[in-house]
């Protein structure tokens, strides 16, 4: 009986107790030490993206995309404007690395419609741009493997394979050569003018026309 009475007295305060628990928990949220939350991507996700093969685009893939007029990507040159003006890839946007996070360029790199392909002279600065973008959670960022230098060495000026190499190398070479022609490189054999075959006018044949002998007038009606 005593226990029941105590319990009943205790339970008569149950709403007060529940309200107190609520307030203590809510107050606890205010009291909690503030923790700086990591903004953007998680470390494991960043690592996964960094080691993924999706990260790089080879120069051959890129030239194929440009030639086939693939509309799904944006080229971003992260070098300084001077180098950009000297030489860059067709239809590229120049966003120097130190201006990468400027507001005016955000629309180019923070979107989900297009792949963004970064490049610099090598892939060094482009990789930095890639990491910066990914830390902010931007999507579909890629890097041109080897950058402009690799572009020059493989597409614009492809090395001629020597005879011992496999047939694929020759095929690759001819593809690259064709690509380089697309980007405006001229080859000597392209320039060679074939000697025109001049047809000599055939000697005139003399066809003797036999004159019909005049017949002597024979009688008549």
């Amino acid at each position, binding site marked *: 009986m005593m226990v029941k009475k105590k319990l009943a007295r205790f339970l008569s305060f149950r709403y007060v107790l529940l309200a107190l628990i*609520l*307030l203590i928990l*809510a107050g606890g*949220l205010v009291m909690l030490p503030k923790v700086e939350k990591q903004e953007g991507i998680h470390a494991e996700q960043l690592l996964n993206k960094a080691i993924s093969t999706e990260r790089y685009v080879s120069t051959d893939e890129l030239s194929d995309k440009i030639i086939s007029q693939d509309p799904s990507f944006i080229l971003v040159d992260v070098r300084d404007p001077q180098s950009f003006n000297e030489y860059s890839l067709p239809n590229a946007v120049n966003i120097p690395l130190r201006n990468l996070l400027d507001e005016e360029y955000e629309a180019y790199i923070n979107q989900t419609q297009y792949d963004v392909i970064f490049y610099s002279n090598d892939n060094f600065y482009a990789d930095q741009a890639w990491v910066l973008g990914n830390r902010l959670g931007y999507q579909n960022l890629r890097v041109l493997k080897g950058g402009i230098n690799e572009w020059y060495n493989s597409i614009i000026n492809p090395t001629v394979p020597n005879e011992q190499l496999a047939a694929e190398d020759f095929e690759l070479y001819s593809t690259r050569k064709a690509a380089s022609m697309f980007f405006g490189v001229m080859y000597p054999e392209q320039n060679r003018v074939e000697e025109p075959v001049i047809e000599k006018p055939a000697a005139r044949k003399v066809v003797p026309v036999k004159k019909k002998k005049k017949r002597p007038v024979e009688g008549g009606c």
Partner: protein
Amino acid sequence: MGPIIPNGLIPIEWDSIIAIFIGICFGFVLESSGFSSSRKLAGVFYGYDFAVLKVFFTAAVVSVIGIYYMDYLGYLDIRQLYVHPTFLWGAIIGGVIMGVGFVAGGFCPGTSLCAVAIGKLDAWVYVLGIMVGVLLFSEFFTFIEPIYDGYFLGNITLMDSFDWNPYWVIFIFSIIAVVAFALADVVRKRVKKVFY
């Protein structure tokens, strides 16, 4: 880690099935706690029954406290949660219509369906009214569209728009809840009891 479905811990294909399950549980709880009675719901406005106020206020406070603790401990990323977009005037006008309907009919849309399930006639009329409202809304949509699509403020929260500290907001909100419960009890004791 969480939320569970956007992070792929549960495949997205399950979400309708989970929604149906939660919906059935919700309906069961509504019915078993007497919310399918329009008198109980209308009691909030007449001051003889504050169950609705208490239930929904408690639910909000408990879940917000739980979510922020889980966020703090890293079980849930609060930035990934869905925030319903705000269409300012659409929300105000819709809220007024909903409120008037709530007082006049004694149901909110969810409880009206519960009451239909147990065969209450007023609930049938109420749901019929909802259907007529839906029809009128669709027929006059071209006139309503500027309000429906306009005044768009984005997926904003109080913390974003006023730059408040969420923890203090929750604390003050809980105090308001407890005070409201106490006040509701005082009012309920003064008002004449209604049996239903």
